[in-house]
């Protein structure tokens, strides 16, 4: 009566396949495929999205992301260095910043820079500044921890070799440690870029001119116009055109550095090598 462990595993797997087949059959019979097909993918509506969805929306998404990522990377590097400073107040400031911006929703930061700050200080940012600030400030908090982990993963002996060649602490940091740290953290930074690509869509709530539409807003507007799901589907595919190659790149970089040191941000702490 008692099945062997192997037999039982086989039976369970068989059951799982059977369930899959049942679900597929039910869906095929019950669902109104023609209607679903038209609603989700209407070829005429799809055609009407081109070329603007690429030439405007995709380009804007990439532009906003690159702006935010660039600013975030620079600020993140500064925060990471502050976080490791020998002057305690710098460490505290960096920690408070990082905890704050990792703890509040990115949406709130966009609202703050889109509406709150302009009201408070009687200034008006253009769309590029807003997205760069909001996306960059949030991204920096995450990237700072990744960069710090990367810097701490560079073996101590590298700094000692640089110092004994007469380099100052700062010079050793710039010419030896940071270049190696970035090599180590390239995979997690690529993942951060993917997250920012998606978060760049939050700009949609700011009231954009047509030429400023990014993919999400573009899809939303086209959905209204055509009363169709199709533009959203295409917008989604456009995101995947960006994110999937990045994801492959990240995994390839990770495999390339595997065997060496590996840092998965932002939890990773320093893997110190004592020479």
């Amino acid at each position: 009566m008692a099945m062997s462990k192997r037999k039982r595993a086989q039976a369970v797997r068989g059951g799982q396949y059977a369930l899959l087949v049942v679900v597929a059959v039910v869906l095929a019979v019950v669902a109104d495929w023609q209607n679903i097909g038209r609603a989700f993918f209407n070829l005429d509506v799809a055609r009407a999205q081109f070329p603007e969805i690429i030439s405007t929306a995709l380009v804007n998404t990439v532009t906003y992301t690159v702006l935010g990522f660039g600013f975030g990377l620079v600020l993140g590097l500064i925060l990471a260095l502050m976080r490791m400073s020998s002057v305690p107040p710098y460490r505290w400031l960096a920690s408070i910043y990082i905890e704050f911006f990792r703890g509040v929703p990115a949406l709130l930061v966009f609202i703050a820079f889109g509406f709150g700050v302009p009201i408070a200080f009687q200034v008006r940012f253009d769309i590029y500044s807003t997205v760069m600030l909001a996306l960059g400030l949030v991204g920096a908090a995450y990237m700072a921890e990744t960069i710090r982990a990367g810097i701490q993963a560079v073996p101590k002996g590298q700094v000692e070799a640089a110092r004994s060649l007469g380099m100052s602490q700062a010079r050793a940091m710039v010419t030896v440690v940071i270049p190696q740290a970035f090599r180590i953290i390239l995979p997690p930074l690529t993942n951060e870029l993917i997250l920012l690509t998606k978060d760049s869509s939050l700009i949609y709530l700011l009231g954009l001119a047509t030429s400023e539409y990014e993919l999400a807003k573009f899809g939303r507007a086209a959905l209204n116009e055509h009363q169709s799901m199709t533009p959203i589907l295409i917008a989604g595919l456009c995101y995947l055109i960006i994110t999937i190659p990045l994801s492959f790149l990240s995994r390839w970089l990770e495999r390339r550095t595997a065997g060496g040191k590996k840092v998965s941000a932002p939890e990773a702490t320093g893997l110190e090598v004592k020479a």
Partner: protein
Amino acid sequence: MSETVVEIIGLQKAFGPLHVLRGIDLEVRRGEVVCVIGPSGSGKSTLLRCVNLLEQPTGGRVAVGGVELTDPDVDIDAARRRIGMVFQQFNLFSHLTVLDNLTIAQRKVLRRGKAEAEEVARRNLARVGLAEKADAMPAQLSGGQQQRVAIARSLAMDPELMLFDEPTSALDPELVGDVLGVMRTLAEAGMTMLVVTHEMQFAREVADRVLFMDGGVVVEQGPPERVIAAPQHERTRAFLSRVLDPTHQGPNVPAT
């Protein structure tokens, strides 16, 4: 007469409660090769690292080339330029080619031009027998080759003193000879060297003086034929019998 390159007086170093160096006096004259031997944990690396202030001494005086490094106002970066250091783990800059490993400090620290720095780099690579490896990355080299590049990297800065911290301890046995060969040539060319090593054959043949350290003090020092071949102290004898004849451990095994 020859001038003093390294002058260490009453050097102390503690890591918290751990007293690692307990008053070391040492003088190294120009062109002299001094080998430091002693059991693991006796403070050899710490001594060497105090000579270029990778560790901050907690007491005593260290002067190199007449510059007192333990003076709190000393320009330590300037002082280190004239002291080469070779590490057990090589510590080549892994993101740079061999040539760039040799030129980067020349360019950024000594402010040499690109052409001059490369000329110096290639000359020193040739000196360690690796002229053809200029464009390789460190990871593509064997341990012995990496260590020779590390030596060349230090030499490219025209140091007046070279420190070696167990330069062959991380190497496969068949690669040790190449590195020791380079060091021997360097010694013959008149370089002042302070070498921590377990290679007794090298110490015996190349050193002008051998220092035996144990427990953070210099137990005994003198010419190699005395310290290695006829040690005066029991601790030195016990250490040497362990190193020279590791299969017959024990303090009572008579030397053969």
